[in-house]
Every structure is written in C-alpha cells, then in structure tokens.
C-alpha cells in the first residue's frame, strides 16, 4: 500500500505540478530554453545496517558494510532552472539473513531460518540544482524511498539428537520499508545534454542513518 502511495505522489508531482511552474518559465521573454526532463541510469555501492532491508530480528547477515551493489534508473522533471521533481527505481543485490530460535518449540527441538531478501525501491524526491547553464551542477536532494522486500525463506527444524534430516519449511513473502533520505551530488556534463551523475545518499530510520548509497552513472537531458 505504501509503495502505491509513494508512486502516486511521485507521478502526481511530476505530471501535474511541474507544467504550472514550467509555463511560468517559458512565458518570460528572453529566458534561456532549458530542457525540461532528464533521465539516467547508474550503478552504485550500498552500505546498510544489518537490521535494514528485512534484517530486523535476525542474528547475522552476509550483507553488512559496503557489500551490496545497486542499479538505478531515474527520471526528473524540472519545475524551474533550479528545482526538479524526481522519481527513481533501485534494484539491490539480495541480502542473506540468518536467524535461530533461542527457545525450543518443543522439548528437544531447535529451529534456524535462512532468509534471502531481494530489495527493490521506488523513490520520490525534490532536488535543488545550483548554478545555471554551466557544465558542472552541484545539487542536493531530499525525498522518500519505499523499498519492497521479496523474501524467500527456509526454516530448518532439528530434533534433539541432530541425527535425522531436519524438517524444512520453505516460503515466500513480501513486506516494505519506508525511509526518508537526503542526497548530494554533481551533474557533470559532456555537452549540452549528456552528463555523468555522481551522488552520495543517506537514508534514515528512527535509530539514525539506516543505509547509504554511493553511485555514479550516465544520463541525458531532453
């Protein structure tokens, strides 16, 4: 549900709000004719706490530190020469969590759970781009990222003697996480419309910074 709401906000911002501002810019005589849209892709590194991306309550993860990679697609609509509404899609490498029960279900039984979580995120943000009509634009962003977590799990239940094969229960599930984020970066142009985008992003939850990405990619204005 939260994913639909975030997507709706991003789409409404880009589709309906932007033309109002854009018309103001176009109607001013002598104003520079700027491109209204940009789109791009990027690759990056992901750093996250163990509890992030479905890891809450697990005992260990093969994903702490800068061990994840991301692929991103972004599209933006300029509301003015400096302000932009953006929507983004991010895929992350799967994160493997491991958990075990500290209490016995029945006398002599013990369970452990392996979970492989596949995060996919959508985000909506507003970006303020410094300078005008130059080859290198620094920018800052703030927005919301909603991550959909598709999870495959296997739960092993062992008998007290560990002699027989464990009872295995497999399952799948889906959940979501919502995180506000701030980001800063550069759009470094090759020419009038093609650019490299480099960005560092930090997302937050109630305990502070929850995850961050460092990414670089290519894009075009159109």
């Amino acid at each position, binding site marked *: 549900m939260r994913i639909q709401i975030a997507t709706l906000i991003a789409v409404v911002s880009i589709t309906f709000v932007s033309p109002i501002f854009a018309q103001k810019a176009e109607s001013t005589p002598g104003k520079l004719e700027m491109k209204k849209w940009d789109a791009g892709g990027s690759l990056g590194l992901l750093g996250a706490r163990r509890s992030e991306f479905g890891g809450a309550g697990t005992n260990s993860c093969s994903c702490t530190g800068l061990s994840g990679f991301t692929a991103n697609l972004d599209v933006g609509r300029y509301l003015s020469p400096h302000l932009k509404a953006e929507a983004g899609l991010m895929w992350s490498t799967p994160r493997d969590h491991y958990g075990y029960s500290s209490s016995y279900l029945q006398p002599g039984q013990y369970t452990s759970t392996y979970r492989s979580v596949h995060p996919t995120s959508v985000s909506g943000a507003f970006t303020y781009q410094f300078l005008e009509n130059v080859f290198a634009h620094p920018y800052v962003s703030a927005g919301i990222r909603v991550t959909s977590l598709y999870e495959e799990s296997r739960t092993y239940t062992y008998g007290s003697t560990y002699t027989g094969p464990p009872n295995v229960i497999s399952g799948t599930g889906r959940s979501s996480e919502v995180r506000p984020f701030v980001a800063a970066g550069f759009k*470094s*142009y090759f020419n009038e419309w093609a650019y490299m985008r*480099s960005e560092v992003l930090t997302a937050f939850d109630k305990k502070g910074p929850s995850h961050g990405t460092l990414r*670089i990619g290519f894009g075009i204005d159109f």
Partner: protein
Amino acid sequence: MNTQSIVITVLVVLLVAPSAMAAHRQESPEVWKGYTQKLEAGAFLQVRMKDGTKVKGYFIPSAGETLRLRPKTRIPVPIRDFQFSEIESIDRKGDSFWSPGMKVLTGTGVGIGTVMLILLGVYAYGD
C-alpha cells in the same frame, strides 16, 4: 589595553587594509580597451563586472567601446557586449580541454582500474 591587544589590532589592520584598498581601486576603461586590443581572437577570458557578476567566455575582436564575448555556457547563448566602463577586471584564463563529464568518467575509470589492480595484486600475492 595590553600589548597583546595592540599587536592583534595592528595585525588585523595590516591584513584588512590592503584588500579593502584594492577593492576600491578601479581601472579606467582605457586600460581595459588597451588590454583587449592586444588579445587574439578566441582568447578565453573571465570578466568581472562592477555589479559583481562574472562572465567567462571567448574573446571576439570588435571596434568601439565594448568588449565582445561569446560566453562559455553549456547551452549556447548569444554573443554579449560589455561596456569597458562597467568592467571591474579582465583575467585571461586557460580553457580546460576536457569537459567536467569527461573528467568524472576518466576519474571513475582510473579509480576502478586502480582498485582492480590492487585486488589482482592481493590475489596474486595470496597465491
């Protein structure tokens, strides 16, 4: 007022006074006109105006009381003329051969290449 306060006051005056004086010094339009007469077409300049604005661009020779520049911008803009009387300073700059995008791409390539070489070295040493 003790000696330390006097020394600090003198130092502050010495440091601030020259820059304040320099800020108020203005060259006459004739100086800039003479300067630009010796420039070749296409010279890359940074022009600072008296209203505080700054423009970078390529010099285009012209007669009269104006400096003609083709501004260096990402999206091309019309050639601009600046009155010599409105110019605060003109500095000749070296124009970068590479665009910022190319610099970032090259830097990223060099960075990734370096990391891969280090990893290769670590694995080779490990074997």
